[in-house]
C-alpha cells in the first residue's frame, strides 16, 4: 500500500489510538484495518482473546467494551479508540480466580479451553445483568458462543454455581441479597 504521491513506500497508513485495556491506557499506531482481536492479541499481548472464526459466530474472541460484550473479531481497533476494554486477563484479582473462572474449573466446564475466555466473558455479562438466571436465560445469554468439547452440560452448572457464589459475596459485602 502506497501512502504518498511520490510512489515511495513508507509502509501502511496508520492512526494513533488510545484504548484502556483492563484499566491501563495503551497507545499504539495501528492500521485502520487492524481487527480489535488482533490488536488485543498482538499489540497488547492478551492471548486469552482467542480467534476461532473471524466472522462472529464462535464467540471465542468475546471481550467487554464499555461494559458490554462484543466479538472483537468483528470490530476494528480504531473503533475502540478512547474506550474501555476488559478481557479475561483482567478478571483474576491478586492471583485468585474470579468466581466465574473458579466455577468453570470446579464443574469441568472446559476441556480444550479454546472457547473458555469467550464463555467466561459472556457469562460475566449474563450474571451481571441477571444474578439468578434460569436454564432458559443461560441458554439465551450464551447462545452466541460455541463450545465444541463439553456439550454445554457443565457450562450451565458453572454459571449457576458462579451466580450463587457472586450473590453470596454480594450479600456479605452489602449485607443484603440481590433478591431483596
Amino acid at each position, binding site marked *: *500500500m502506497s501512502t504518498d504521491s511520490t510512489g515511495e*513506500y513508507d509502509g*501502511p497508513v496508520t492512526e494513533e489510538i488510545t484504548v484502556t485495556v483492563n484499566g491501563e491506557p495503551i497507545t499504539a499506531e495501528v*492500521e485502520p*484495518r*487492524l481487527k480489535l482481536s488482533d490488536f488485543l*492479541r*498482538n499489540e497488547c499481548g*492478551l*492471548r*486469552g*482473546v*482467542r*480467534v*476461532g*472464526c*473471524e*466472522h462472529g*459466530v*464462535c464467540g*471465542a474472541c468475546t471481550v467487554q467494551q464499555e461494559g458490554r460484550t462484543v466479538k472483537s473479531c468483528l470490530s476494528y481497533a480504531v473503533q475502540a479508540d478512547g474506550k474501555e476494554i476488559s*478481557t*479475561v*486477563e483482567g*478478571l*483474576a484479582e491478586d492471583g485468585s*480466580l474470579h468466581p466465574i*473462572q473458579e466455577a*468453570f*474449573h*470446579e464443574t*469441568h466446564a*472446559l*476441556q*480444550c*479451553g*479454546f*472457547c*473458555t*475466555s469467550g464463555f*467466561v466473558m459472556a457469562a460475566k455479562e449474563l450474571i451481571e445483568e441477571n444474578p439468578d438466571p434460569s436454564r432458559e436465560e*443461560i*441458554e439465551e445469554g*450464551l*447462545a452466541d*458462543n*460455541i*463450545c*465444541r*468439547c*463439553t*456439550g*454445554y*452440560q*457443565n*457450562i*450451565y452448572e458453572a454459571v449457576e454455581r458462579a451466580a450463587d457464589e457472586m450473590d453470596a459475596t454480594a450479600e456479605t459485602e452489602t449485607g443484603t441479597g440481590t433478591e431483596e
Partner: protein
Amino acid sequence: MSKSQPGETETETERESSSQSFTGTGLPRVEDHRILTGKAEYIHDITPENCLHMTLVRSMHAHADIASIDASEAEAHPECELVLTAEDLKESYHPMPTGVGRVKIGATGEAVELPEWALADQTARFVGEPVALVVASNRYAAEDVADLVEVEYDTLEAVADGMDAREDEVVLHESIGTNVVDNEHIEFGDPDAAFEEADHVVEGEYSWGRISGVPLETAGVVAQYDEESDSFDIDCNIQLHTLVDDMIHEPLGYDADDVRISVPPDVGGSYGTKIGIHRYCCLAAMASKELERPVKYEEDRIENLQGGDMHSSDREYEVRMAVDDDGTMRGLDVWFVDDFGAFPRYPINQVLKPLSVVTNSYEIDDVSYEYDLVLTNKTSQTAYRGFGVDPHIYALEMLVDQAAREIGMDPTEFRRRNLITPDQMPYTLPSKNIYDSGDYPATLDRIEEIIEDERDGGLLDPEVVESKREEGKYRGVQPSVIIEPGVSGSDWTDRQRSNREALDERSRDEVEELPEHLRAELREDGTVHAFLATDSSGQGHQTLVSQLLADELEILPSDIEVGYLDSVDAPTEYGSAASRMAVMLSGATVGVAERLVESAVELAADHWGVSTDDVTYQDGTVERLDADGSFSLADLAELDAERDERLTSVSYNYDHPATEYEEFDEALAQKFPVYPTAAFGANAPIVEVDVETGEVDILKFYTVRDCGTMLNPMIVEGQAHGGIAQGVGAALLEEFGYEDDGQPQAITLFDYLLPSIETVPEIEMEHTETPSPFTETGAKGVGEGGMIDAPASIATSINAALDPLEIDEPANRIPVSPDHLRTKLRDDE
C-alpha cells in the same frame, strides 16, 4: 526440547488419609488454571522474534489445469518476502506421502505412484487447494501480496459425488485412470448360505453426509530452519506428532532426527482432525529454509472449512440382513462407498475400523463386508472422532429397525433377542476382534425402565403424545445398545498398504505393536516430573497422569508436574487417538511408578548397605524396616545426583493389551482391526418432530453408559457429553454440502452449523462400571462413544416418532435436516 506447564493450580489436592485415592475421583484438572486466566500458550500464541507470516493462494476451481502462475507483481510488493509454487518445491523437495502410496491400475495390475505435492502441481483438484505460498512481514500484508499472484486456470469437468465418481467419467488422477483407489471384500463365516437359508432378506440404503470435527482452534505452525545444524524446529498443533512425523520430514527430505516437531501442551481441540495438517507444516518449513527466518502460518476459518484437508467420512451404504421369522439375525451384508476427496490420505483405514464392531451388540455369525474408497473433487479426508464407526453403526441400526418392521416384531424386542449375553464374554466377533466384558441386556433393560418412567406422566405419556400429534408434533424414542471399540492396535492400521493376499499365512511373530511410552524423574525438591510421549487436545492427560502417579507413589498430585516430549525425544508411538489414552496412559503410569519405587528402594538400600528386602516404600518415603533411617524423595534425589548413572530417572513402555492375550493372535496376525476394550451404552433421545417444518427437537437425551473402571468420572462424563453433542450435530445439523460442479456450500460457520447451547439437549447420564479384564486398571477407551452412538440413536428415534405416519425410513439420510424430512413427508402425502 520438552514442553511443560507448571502444576500451578491451587486446588483441593490434600490427601485426607493415606487410604484415600485420587484415582476414581473427579479431581479437578491441573490444566484449567492457565487456560482460565488466559495464560495457556496455544500454537496461535507462539510468535518468535523476527518471525515472518505465510498465507496461501488457493484454487477457486474444483478441477482445473493450472495454465500459468505470474508472481511478478506480487514479488514487486515492498512487503513481499517470498512466493513459492509447485515448480519451486519440485526443485528441492518431495511429495507428501499418501495413504495408498502406490495404486494398482486396471488390467495390467501395474502399480503407479500417486504423488501429492504440498502445492498443486499442474492441476488443482478441489476448491481451496493451495496453489502458491506467500510470505510477508505480517498476515495482513501477506494477504495483500497473495492478491497480486495471478493464476490462470483451464477449468475441467469436476465430480463431487462418490457414487458418480465410481463411473470414472471424470478421473481425478490420469496417471492411475480410476477414482476407485482401494477396495476390499472380506467374508466371515458363510454369508451366502445365511442369506439363502433365512426366512427374510431385508435391504436398506443409507447416506451419511460429509462432516468433521471442526475444532475451534484452526491449524497453526511456526517453523524455524537452522542453517548451522541444517535442521528444523517445528511447533504446530498436529495430532499424533510422533506417528505422523514422516508426513513432514519425508517431503522436506530430512531424517526424522533433523525435524523436531513440538506440540504445545494446549491444543484447541482436534477430535482426530489435526492428524492431517502436515501440508502446512511442510510449507512453513520450506519457506523458513528459503528465508532463513522463522515462518508462521495460522489457518483461517474459511480455509479450514473449504480446503483444510479436514473433512471426514462421506458414505453411501447398501446393506442387507438375513433374518428368520422368530427374530434371529442370521447374516449381515455391508457394502459402501467412502468419498475421500482429492487424495487418499493417511486415515484410509477408517473404512476398516467398523470391522472391530461389525455386528454391534448383536450375535450374527455370517458377515460380508465390502467397500470402495473413491476420490472426488473435494478437500481430502482426515480422521474424526469415531473414525468411520459412526456411519456403520447408524446404517446397521437403521437396518435393524427396517428388519423389525418387516418381520412384524417390536424393534426393542427384536434387538433384545439378538444381544450378545454376559455369559458369552469375552466374545469373539466373526471379524476376529473381541468384546471384553459387559451386560448388554441389563443396559437395554435399564434404558427401557427410564423410558417407561417417561411414559408414565412424563414426556412420553400417551395422552401428551396424542395431544402433541394433534398439533403436528410427533414424539418417539428407540434405544439400542451400542459398542465403542477402544484402544486401537497400531499394526493393523497399514493393512491396505500390505500384501493382503499373504495375510492368511502371516505369523503372529511378525506383528509389531507400538507401546505407550512414559518417563518420570525425581527432582531435587522431591517433586516428580513426568513426560508424555503423546500430545493432548483437551482430554486432561496431565490430570490423569498426576492422579494415578500420586496414588502409586503415595504423594500429592500437586507434587507432580507433567510435561511433553517432542518428536525427536519421544520414541515413535501411536499417541492420543482411537480411544486409547485412558487405557494406555494409565497402564504406562502404573508401570513407570513401579519403576520409580523400585529405584528409590534400590538407591536407599545401596546407601545403607542393606538388602532391598530390608527397606520399604510408603507415602513418598523409603524407610528401613529396623527403623534406623529414612529418606524422603528429596533426599533420594540428592543421593542420586552423586551417582554416575541416575536411578531416579526412569521410563516405561506399556505394551498394547491385545498382545498379552492369545485370543487376539488371529486378528493381530491377519491385520484385522484390534480394539481390546468394548465400552458400551444405550441412549434414549426423546425426539419431537414437527411435521410442518421438518424440524427435530430432542426434548431430553437419556444415556446409560459403561466404560469399565472410571479413572476420573468427571472427565469421563465430559467426554460423553462432548461426544453426544457432536453426535447431535452430525445427526441434525452439520454437513459439508457440495454443488455438482464441486463448489463447496459450507465455508463459514453460518453454513456449517455447529451445535450451540440452544441445540444440544439436556443430557441425563447414568453409569455402570464393568472393568475390562484385559487392561491394567480395568479402564476401557472412552473418547469416541457419544459420537459413535448418538447419531444412530437419534435416527432410530426419529423413525419411531414418525412410525404412526408409516413413512418409509424417514431418517435414511444423515444429517436429518428439516429439508430432508419435509421431502420425505411431502413424498408420502
